[in-house]
Structures are given as structure tokens and as C-alpha cells.
């Protein structure tokens, strides 16, 4: 099962500069654990205290995961996941 994950510029240090990597998992949580195996350190940039970081947005097939179950959002073969840091500040 392959899921394409689009990686933002700021996290490409974990993917040898790759803009997109493949991972697998039946849920977002499982996918992130899988990414961590090949790209150690990336999980900590996405998750904090067991939840998605407040200023990291993750989308599954164009939909913000916060509206479709967060870390428990389901994934299937061929889904596309996009990670985008929030553009925000004070």
C-alpha cells in the first residue's frame, strides 16, 4: 500500500531534499510512524503530546485532516497526503 506524502520545504531536511516520499499505513498515525522509520525525526515535527501540532496542517486528498478524524483519519492505497506548515504569526 503506497501513499504519496508531499513534504514542505522546511521538512525536506528529513527527506534528503525530496518533495514527496512514499509511506504506508491505514491511518494517519500509522503513516507517520512509517515515515519515521525512513525519515527519523520527522514525527516530532508533526506530532506533539500525542496530537497533531497546532501549526502543522495535514491534508488527505485535499481535505484538512482536522475535519476527518485527525490522527485517526483513515487512509487507503493511492491517497495523497500533503503536509503544510501554517502561515501564521503575531
Amino acid at each position, binding site marked *: 500500500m503506497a501513499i504519496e506524502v508531499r513534504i514542505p520545504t522546511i521538512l525536506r531536511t528529513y527527506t534528503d531534499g525530496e518533495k514527496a516520499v512514499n509511506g504506508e499505513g491505514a491511518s494517519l498515525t500509522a503513516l507517520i510512524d512509517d515515515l519515521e522509520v525512513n525519515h527519523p525525526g520527522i514525527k516530532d515535527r508533526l506530532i506533539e503530546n500525542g496530537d497533531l501540532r497546532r501549526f502543522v*496542517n495535514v*491534508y488527505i486528498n485535499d481535505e484538512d485532516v482536522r475535519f476527518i478524524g485527525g490522527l485517526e483519519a483513515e487512509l487507503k492505497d493511492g491517497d495523497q497526503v500533503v503536509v503544510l506548515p501554517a*502561515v*501564521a504569526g503575531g
Partner: protein
Amino acid sequence: MLTIDRATYDAIVAHAKRDHPDEACGIVAGPEGSDRPERFVEMVNAAGSPTFYEFDSTDLFQLYKEMDQNDEEPVVVYHSHTATEAYPSRTDIGLASEPGAHYVLVSTREHGNNDGPVEFRSYRIVDGEVTEEDVTVVDDLEPRNESS
């Protein structure tokens, strides 16, 4: 150094003045690797706040999708401060996630919604390090094929 054309500069300032006292935000996209701020994109501040700004998550997704399709990147990321100077706040520094972008700060604290000069300053923010840079405003960016 940030080189920006007059029309884009004016559009950023006008947006900041219009949204005062809330913070205004947006980007100027340009071809990847060109360092040319060509396409002005005004964004809605989903926080609607005088002390915070955040792009709406759906708008953010659409924007990045569009840039991806056009082989663009965010050359400028701008927002306004409405009561303080045009210098990145601790939050700005902590959340800056485009190491290749020029972070433009506009302060509307002097004249608010009214005419009058604003502070317009530009920074690089990389790994928590802020470096201010000069801003050069030109009538028009040089034609693409003549720029190095």
C-alpha cells in the same frame, strides 16, 4: 535584498491599511528559484485579530496547490503589525517556515487606516535567526530573460 515593484509594494500597504486594526497577511508568489515577487495574493486573516494572523487552512492548501501547478514559490510572505514596530515578533520567528522567503512586515501603528507613510521592512528568518535586508522599490521588475 528584496527587490519589489511599486504596484506590489502599494498593494501590500493598501491591504495593511484597509485591514487595520486587524493584522493583514498574504504572499507574493514568483517562479521557483527566481527571487522575483510577481504574483500578489491577498489572504484572509482567519484569526481576524490585531495581534495574530493565520491563513485559513483551506485557503492555504489551495494557494500551495496553485503555486505547485505554476512552478511558483512564496517569494514574499507579508503581514502587518498594527500597534508595534515592523519587526518580527517572537511568534513570527517561532512559526516562520519558509526559509527561502522574504518576510515583509508593515506597521500601520502611525496612521492606521489613513494616508501617510508606513514602516515597510523585510527579513530573512531561518532557524530562528532574523536578518534584516534592504528593500528596493522599482517601477517594474526587469524583464525575466534579462535578469541573471
